[in-house]
């Protein structure tokens, strides 16, 4: 079966909780009518009726302002967020490169963290031994790999995380701004590996604010705005459209609060 990603009418509703929202007392209190609606919470649609059909061979750039739903879209495709409405259909092995390295256990050594991150990507242990030295070599951490990660610099953590996540070729690659740290030399190296991965993966979703890179690697671009697909098409048309109508356009005026639905008690 060819890898594909299909979202039908996908809607995600987020609730924002205050500090004391989820308490047992309030849960009991809602049974007594007097105290009903005592607590309010804010809900908004992180994704709103998203319809997408992505086939093998497509390298899709996802662009949009902060909070437009780009990362949420990737997390929905990878299965982290189940949709409240509509459906998500994914065929193929998925590697999410989302907020790399933040799930490291800093008390443990780099080598132990390679194993943790490896199994947490849903991969079997046996082939790891062959790959371990390649991961360490690419991350350039030979001398430090048996030291606890708490002694690493943030650049070293980023290098290690990137090397682990990209050590194997997936069918579907989900990339979310992974070059925030690391020195220029490593970023260059990482970008070249990323391009290599994009070349070999069958289907790529690539979230980035780097429009030049999006133009360079993608053959399709989706513009997200306030949880919806604002436009979808060729990079050379979509990037100017995004800059004109969203970044510099009238839409900017009514940006916040994005898609606020209602306030009230939800159980």
């Amino acid at each position, binding site marked *: 079966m060819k890898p594909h990603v299909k979202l039908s009418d996908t809607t995600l509703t987020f609730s924002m909780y205050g500090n004391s929202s989820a308490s047992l007392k309030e849960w009991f209190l809602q049974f007594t009518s007097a105290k009903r609606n005592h607590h309010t919470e804010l809900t908004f649609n992180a994704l709103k009726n998203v319809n997408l059909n992505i086939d093998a061979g497509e390298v899709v750039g996802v662009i949009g302002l902060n909070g437009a739903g780009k990362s949420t879209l990737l997390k929905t495709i990878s299965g982290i967020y*189940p949709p409240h409405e509509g459906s998500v259909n994914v065929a193929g092995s998925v590697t999410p490169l989302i907020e790399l390295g933040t799930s490291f256990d800093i008390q443990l050594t780099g080598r132990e963290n390679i194993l943790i991150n490896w199994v947490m990507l849903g991969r*079997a242990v046996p082939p790891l031994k062959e790959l371990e030295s390649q991961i360490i070599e690419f991350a350039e951490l030979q001398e430090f790999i048996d030291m606890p990660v708490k002694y690493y610099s943030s650049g070293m953590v980023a290098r290690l995380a990137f090397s682990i996540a990209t050590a194997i070729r997936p069918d579907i690659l989900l990339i979310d701004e992974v070059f925030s740290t690391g020195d220029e030399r490593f970023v260059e190296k990482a970008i070249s590996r990323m391009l290599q991965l994009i070349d070999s993966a069958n289907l790529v979703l690539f979230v980035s604010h780097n429009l030049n890179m999006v133009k360079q690697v993608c053959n399709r671009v989706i513009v997200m705005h306030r949880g919806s697909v604002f436009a979808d098409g060729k990079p050379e048309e979509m990037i100017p459209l995004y800059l004109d109508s969203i970044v510099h356009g009238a839409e900017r005026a009514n940006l916040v609060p994005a898609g606020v639905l209602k306030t009230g008690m939800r159980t």
Partner: protein
Amino acid sequence: MFHMAQPVMTDVYLSHGFRDPLSVRASRELNSLWRYKDCVPTFVINNLRRRYQRSVLGFFWSLLNPLLMMTIMTVVFSVFFNKEPRDFALYVFSGLLPWSFMSATMTSGCGSIVEAESYLKKLPVPKLIFPLVHVATEATNFVLSLLALAILGAALGLPFQLSSLLLPLAVVPIVAFTLGITMLLAVSTVYFRDIAHIVAVSLGGIFYLTPILYPVSAVPERFREWYQFNPFFQQFNLLRALVCDGRLPSVQEWSIAIALSVVALSVGTFVYLWRERDIVYRL
């Protein structure tokens, strides 16, 4: 330089999210657990490793800790209460060790899903992994503490009970019961963060209501029949019969313990599957 092996697993993921029926979600969960099965031993080993990081005796502490604790208690009881160690040591510890396992696992297991937020928001791992890892880690220590009990028994010169060989059979329902309750508590804590504190206080009280430090015969007759409703007592009852009394538990005793475990596991599984989709939105 760059490993280009084809990924082993190709998966098809179809989710209607909150509208998927229970059977679909249950089978997806099983698939997912199978796929991520290597996480459990990896995390258990790392947990144990981290606990004894930089200590000279390392993993040996898992054995030494209960041994020292029991030795101190034995000395205190025999010196201050004038009890003969041989009379009470096996009785007290065959209750205390499983109790400590159950109560400590449940208390700290409340937070097992909440504390895994950083993983759950970044990777599509099954949330059940985390209570499983927690219980498995504590169960490893529990089994080692039973070994320490055997050492203590030998040191006190107590005769070895042949029935002790059936001990693994009595450990299974205890672990299963603890897992079920821990699943239930871990999911509930996502919604009501107060639960961790409520559980800690309640278990502190239940400890004194359970015949661990005192014999059942010390309980006034009119309360005694209530003890059969204490699930903790029913769980370590098997272990105590095998190790301390040197007898095989009756069919009734086995059935009660196993039934309690099955109920706990079922409730835990059901609540987990019921709330599983929503958990990531509540962290």
